[in-house]
């Protein structure tokens, strides 16, 4: 009675296994990428060098994503998206961190496309076969502030007293960007709520530096 249905379900199950193994490979590469970029916390002054060092790993990630794209059936992106959504978010948040330590700028969607060869969706009516859901991009950007709060405190610990203020300005700008969105009670909303605490942490670091007059002293010395 159900032979055909059973067969379809079996085939889908196999496909999902395939996707799962691609995601596992991608996760492995992303873990290595994370280790590489984490050097930025112990050597806050070497951002650009570390960013350059991570290039080869991002290239590997792009290759994995190409493999993943080949496996996901066209026209049914959303059906399987939940299997690799987390990995995609991680990849983009690592890229965002890399862009920040290299140039103190926000990762743009053009840069995502350039790094991974995958477009970011920006409109409901444009047909795209394989893409980064806008939610995943937003969630990735929203995880920057917590990394940046670590960067701020490590910068101060490594005697870069001007940097935390710049990190604060950037993080506030990210927070303000999210404030303009009409978020519902979903994952993006929850991430947005947590940004507030990261902002607070960075504010406290900047306050601390200001109270001890460390930033003015450093500026005076460098003049």
């Amino acid at each position, binding site marked *: 009675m159900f032979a055909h249905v059973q067969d379809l379900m079996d085939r889908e199950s196999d496909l999902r296994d395939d996707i799962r193994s691609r995601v596992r490979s991608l996760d492995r590469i992303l873990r290595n990428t994370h280790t590489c970029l984490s050097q930025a916390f112990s050597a806050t002054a070497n951002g650009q060098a570390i960013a350059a060092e991570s290039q080869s790993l991002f290239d590997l990630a792009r290759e994995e994503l190409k493999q993943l794209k080949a496996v996901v059936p066209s*026209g*049914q992106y*959303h059906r399987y998206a939940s299997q690799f959504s987390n990995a995609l978010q991680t990849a983009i948040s690592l890229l965002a961190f890399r862009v920040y330590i290299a140039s103190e*700028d926000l990762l743009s*969607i053009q840069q995502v496309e350039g790094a991974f060869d995958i477009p970011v969706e*920006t409109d*409901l009516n444009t047909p795209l076969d394989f893409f980064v859901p*806008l939610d995943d991009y*937003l969630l990735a950007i929203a995880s920057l502030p917590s990394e940046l709060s670590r960067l701020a405190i490590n910068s101060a610990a490594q005697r870069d007293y001007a940097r935390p203020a710049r990190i604060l300005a950037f993080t506030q700008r990210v927070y303000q960007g999210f404030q303009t*969105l009409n978020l519902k009670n979903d994952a993006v909303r929850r991430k947005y709520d947590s940004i507030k605490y990261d902002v607070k942490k960075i504010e406290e670091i900047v306050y601390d530096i200001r109270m001890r007059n460390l930033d003015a002293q450093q500026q005076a010395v460098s003049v």
Partner: protein
Amino acid sequence: MTSVANALVVLPAIDASDPWSIFPVAKHFIDARWERREVLIKQSREITRDSKKLIVALHRLQMFDTAGLAAATDKPLARIAQLCATVNTTIGHPVNKERFYRDLRPGMEELIEALSFRHYLQTGKLLSYEETVSALAASGHSVTPELYILGLMDLGGELMRYATSQATNRAVGIVFAVCHFMQQFFHGIPFPFFVCMYVRE
């Protein structure tokens, strides 16, 4: 409804040199998606409601009563087909079908329940997956295996109800036929895979 899919709004543009320009675009995207979801949920509820009404009407009918079935169900089914076509228009691009799957599922499930119930009364047989696919393809909808099976699960409940009321009418033959049919049906269902699919949904 059409305005949702084809709104002549000035879309915020992305400035390639300014990464912060993504936020107005994101705002517009999130708002548009939410709006479309709301419309789809409303339309899907109409399909659920009409399908349920159809099932109630089917309960009053006798098996193999082609004329009676046609009289009771042709018009409602035509209306439901129209609702499905409207949903399809609202969805817009086919890739959005999966995007809004969660919102459309209840309506589609109820519809498959109604269709399979009608089919059983008409023929005494189970509506096959292929027949379900072609029935819904006319208004542009696809049927996933798990959606089909979910609809059939609901059918089981309706058949039980039908057999019970037929028994009250002393139509014992029908009761036995339905019982035999359901036994075949439940032994045939690819149960373990179905459970996995359902959990995933």
